[in-house]
């Protein structure tokens, strides 16, 4: 049995230890917000947080995660889509097809947690996720908007 703490809940799963965390989240735990895009940590569609750090879960064997580590997926980013980034995404109509956006949001949330007021250059350097629809400019605008909203709230 493998124990995983995902979105504040402890799950026990029976799984081959080599299985990437992505597939455990999607299949054994049934949370499909985290996406498969490339399987080689290139595209970032599978991005989740482990203890607050952005991790590309397609290339992280589940055996490398300890029961004490806290995993956050898109489903756990907020209880009711109220994270400032989610609100900004809706306000600016950021997604097109939307497939990459869970990963984008998790990468952006990680950036803002470490750097609440990133410059545009910092955003461009930090968010390396691929979006084929081409939402990059709205992602940048969304991160800035979320940062501003958070700053206003103090």
């Amino acid at each position: 049995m493998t124990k995983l703490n995902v979105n504040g809940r402890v799950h026990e799963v029976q799984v081959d230890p080599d299985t990437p965390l992505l597939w455990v989240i999607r299949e054994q735990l049934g949370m499909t917000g985290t996406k498969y895009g490339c399987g080689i940590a290139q595209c970032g569609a599978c991005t989740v947080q482990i203890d607050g750090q952005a991790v590309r879960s397609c290339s992280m064997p589940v055996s490398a995660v300890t029961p004490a580590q806290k995993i956050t997926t898109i489903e756990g980013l907020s209880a009711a889509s109220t994270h400032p980034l989610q609100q900004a995404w809706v306000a600016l109509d950021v997604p097109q097809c939307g497939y990459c956006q869970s990963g984008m949001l998790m990468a952006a949330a990680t950036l803002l947690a470490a750097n609440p007021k990133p410059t545009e250059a910092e955003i461009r350097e930090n968010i390396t996720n691929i979006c084929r629809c081409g939402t990059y400019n709205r992602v940048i605008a969304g991160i800035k908007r979320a940062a501003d909203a958070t700053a206003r709230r103090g």
Partner: protein
Amino acid sequence: MTHIASASRRGFLQASAALGAFTLAISFTEEAAAQGTPSALATAPGATMAPEINAWVVVKPDDTVVVRIARSEMGQGTLTGLAQLVAEELDCDWAKVTTEYASATENLRRGRVWGDFSTGGSRGIRESNEYVRKGGAAARMMLLQAAAEGWKVPVAELAVDKGIITHGRTSRRISYGKLAAAAARVTPPDAATIRLRDPKDWKIAGKPLPRLDTRDKVNGKQVYGADIKLPGMLNAAIRACPVFGGKVASFDAAAALARPGVKKVVQVGENAIAVVAEHWWQAKTALEAVNITWDEGPNAHVQQADIDAMLAEGLDATQAFIGNRAGDAAEGLAKAVRKVEATYSFPFQNHATMEPMNATAVWTAERCDVWCPTQNGEASLAAAAAASGHRPQQCEIHKMHLGGGFGRRGWQDFVTQAVLIAKQMPGTPVKLLWTREEDMLHGRFHPITTAKMTAGLDADGKLAALHIRISGQSIVAGIAPQMLQNGLDSRVFQGLAQGGNEFTFGYGVRDLLIDHAMRNPHVPPGFWRGVNLNQNAFYQECFIDEVAHEAGKDALAFRQALLSGAPKQLAVLNAVAERAGWGKPLPAGHFLGLAAIMGYGSYVAACAEVSVSRAGEVKVHKITAATDPGHAVNPQQIAAQVEGSFVYGLSAAFYGECTVKDGHMEQENFDTYQVMRMDEMPAVESIVMPSGGFWGGVGEPTIAVAAPAVLNAIFAATGKRVRRLPLRHTDLKH
């Protein structure tokens, strides 16, 4: 109606039996064109769908309006745009509008009441706007009629706003939701009598409204094809022979079958092996343990250099299909005071949708159900019917949200595979998901072409003669050769065509010849977002820039002088030049480049602002873009499509290239098939300038001007011409 229904059904059955899904889609389209647009009127609603006022509109008792959508939403915003058009004529409350996909099986049963399901060619809105608006208008008329009958007053005395009908004289009011049942029984109006609102009076259409499908995309709830879960469902991974045309010779599944979770190892068609397991990762890893011997066939010896040589030969071949001709190009070139010549080339590209190909199927002896992200529900239905051995009426396509399409999901190979797998496990739902590697190896690739451009200048430095010889692949020859016209593929000339209302060559050149030496490699071609407009705009707009430079003329003025016969193309060109500050001082080291073309019925232009370091590093600072799509149904979504088009177009320009080795593609993932990321994304300013009177598409045309605008700016910065894409082949040190 009876005649239409039976004709559709006959065409459907013939096509699905004999020719397969793609041809079916074409034959449907032609048949629809022959019959005129689909009726906006209701026939009996199908058992699988909610009660309706007519085919397009369902109003629930709580006043929620469900607009039925036939085209597929893959990020391009057509779901929202089409709903706006229906809601506009329905006069309902936009805040209460939701959508649902129409069923392809129902469409077949009801004489194609929803028309064409094919979602490509930037056609979603431009080709269905009239009949979906009539659908909304007919529903409004039926609701009004129901109110008039209920109140026993003339319809003319009623007013309607946001789904509330009022009768002023008696101060009565009633909402659509309370009338829906009665309205459904009203005799539908004659489609010919329906008057549509003038776009200048639009209240819902034409407005930059937020998309209807955003909320679930920010919290992980949006269910894509790859996310479907069904009770008892198993998961499959697949590997087809990497060499195009190759087959399975034999396979040994013993080791794979011994692995955990594995249920079955099956051959799929002639060329693929799939492993079905409890979980996908088990299937994927077990597949690697299947010992497959391929019969790679004759293509196993084909190298990229062979294909390049095949295309190079076509540049000077005597036989070619003529796509556009005026005057006498040979004579004009012979008389020219000065000649300019250059050869350009554009490689194979993979769509690389973020969501790899997938489909989920369950087969029984009685029926077949498929859940899939598809750009054409009807083509999926035909593929499911053909693979299942059932009649189409026994099959159902459950359209799922698409994680990108870009043309790839018009093909139905993944549907065929999923059904062929499910058929070997009756009653068990099986989800087939391709790996990224499978997706890269078995794309339907952007066709490869090369072009020899020859221009003749007269004594005034004006472009007097032009010969564009295209050599290379025809998509139509690859997928539906029966659609060729005496061998000619007219789609090769997108953007270079003589007349028409979609892809007209805009420049006025006295002696003109644009022809195509068809050279078809073994690589399966496909419609890749923008299709042939992409390379044609690259050839045309970079070469025009060269000719202007050789003539010693300003690149804008040179184009303007040639565009007097194409005022709308001129207008978008002028718009970007003015907004970007063409001819005005720029920051040190910054240079501008222009491109303009007509495609998919719209006029588009771009002006790129670029700097190139001495070491050759390109930085695209900003792109100013203009689009005249005739009517703009949602300007905000058009702007989003324009922004995204630069990412798609510049990904191809900078990095995109698939190359052939031993008959198969060499690039298998994003590490070797790089795409543009955020650090390279330029600012985009989008000018949406609808001039009215026509309907153009917006999902694709702007892609075509991305590369030439940037490359022309790179020339201005470095003096270096980039004639072979992708750009990474050219050393821009200067």
